[in-house]
């Protein structure tokens, strides 16, 4: 009698055991599902796509003449930069240095900036223009910088209305830990441009990229 009754209403000890059994299976299933989902979602970097040629029109304006080594022929301050091949068009912020000596970076990721401690674009020397590769959400103004190739053109409009035209001579990626500061920022005897952004691996722990991408360009007119 007692056994038949037990079939209809399990004793409390059996109910607990069955609960444990089912609960355990449930958790195991949950864990297994979680593992499958976690393993099946490897992170993928967003890959920049090279914009079609001449996506942006070449800026209009008087082109700068061949530079002459004279102090009073200083270029006017730069106001904007256009790089048709990678679809960049941006006004130029003025960037200084932080107290620790680091370069200021643009407060927004969609605008590039000229480092005022470097020569003006078009003047003798290595002029530095900086832009973000990305924000926390997506691409920044210099997202496609690393796709540039020697021979491509960079246009910098000056406050005078003149447009200084630069030709890319090299594209390099350097680890920040061994950044060749003198090659990038150091003195040059001709008018040159350095376009700088970040690249390489992103360190999630520090929130910084481990490398920099530098585009070297030289004034052609």
């Amino acid at each position, binding site marked *: 009698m007692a056994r038949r009754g037990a079939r209809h209403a399990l004793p409390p000890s059996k109910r607990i*055991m069955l609960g*444990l*059994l089912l*609960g*355990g*299976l*449930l958790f*195991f299933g*949950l*864990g297994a599902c*979680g593992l499958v*989902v*976690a*393993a099946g*979602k490897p*992170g*993928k*970097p*967003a890959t*920049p796509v090279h914009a079609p040629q001449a996506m942006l029109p070449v800026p209009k304006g008087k082109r700068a003449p061949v*530079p*002459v*080594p*004279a*102090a009073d022929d200083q270029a006017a301050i730069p106001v904007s930069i256009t790089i048709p091949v990678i679809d960049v068009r941006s006004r130029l912020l003025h960037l200084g240095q932080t107290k620790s*000596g*680091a*370069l200021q*970076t643009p407060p927004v*990721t969609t605008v590039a900036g000229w480092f005022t*401690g470097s*020569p003006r674009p078009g*003047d*003798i*020397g290595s002029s*530095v223009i*900086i832009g973000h*590769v*990305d924000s926390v959400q*997506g691409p*920044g103004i210099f*997202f496609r910088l690393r796709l540039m190739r020697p021979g491509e053109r960079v246009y910098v409009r000056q406050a005078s209305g003149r447009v200084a035209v630069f030709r890319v*001579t*090299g594209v390099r990626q350097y680890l920040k830990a061994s950044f060749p*500061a003198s090659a990038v*920022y*150091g*003195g*040059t*005897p*001709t008018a*040159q441009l350095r376009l*700088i952004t970040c690249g390489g691996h*992103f360190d*999630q722990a520090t*929130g*910084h*990229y481990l490398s*920099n991408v530098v585009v*070297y360009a030289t004034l052609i007119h």
Partner: protein
Amino acid sequence: MTRSRIARLAAATGLAIGTALLAGPAASASSGTGWIRLAHLSPNTPAVDVYLYSFHHARAKIVLHHVAYGTVSPYEAIPAGEYTVAMRAANAPARSKPVLSTNVDVLAHKAYTVAGLGPFKGLRLGILHDRLGTPKGKALVRVIQASLQQHTISVRAGGHVIARRLHFGRTTRYHAVPAGSLDVRAAGSSENTTLDVPLAAGTVHTLVVLDDPGRLQIDDLTDSAGSQVTVAPATGLGGTAPKPGAPMLPWLVVAAGGLLVTAGGIRVYRIRGRALRTP
């Protein structure tokens, strides 16, 4: 006066280089490239044509036509290697024997000024090694004495003596001076002149003292300019970087825990069941 000469020379350089460098390799800041500029700094020497040849090449790489006293060309980027600089009288045939010539060994990442120096009778081509970098927070300044009328000159930049009784045709070494705008004063025996020169940190200048018929004149040449930053900028927030894989460990613990509990449950069920069947 010097200004118009420089403008003319710039135009000539542009033309000459436009044609001469078409076939040459692209100038690159990061490969084996050096720089050279050419100057005429001999007051009583008539205008000349200046030729730059890659060593053993008959065709000139750069030709500057009708270069008069006081002109200095912009720097030209050229592949590192041996070059010959030759001067001929203005409009002399390109195949005629040069008045003067010299060989220059151009090293990668180095800059040179090749200048006609001294009086006409003792004209020589001087090869000057130009600096590209400066000590931190400083500018570099040197003086070329190209005034024949004032045979010796002294030059001060602010309170700094750059040249002391420097003889005609001579050049000083570079002097480091604090960055800032400096009053430069050049004084000969009977003439003197001043020029306000902006000397930004990281810039290298050559001051050329010239005869501007009857007067002394200072020409400020920028040899190089850069900035003095040592760190790489942080220009990315990671929005396009690979996301880290989702963490596995918590799920592993849950699954293992579940498995343990299930196994435990089964075991307890069996023991209890056996106990119930055998009273």
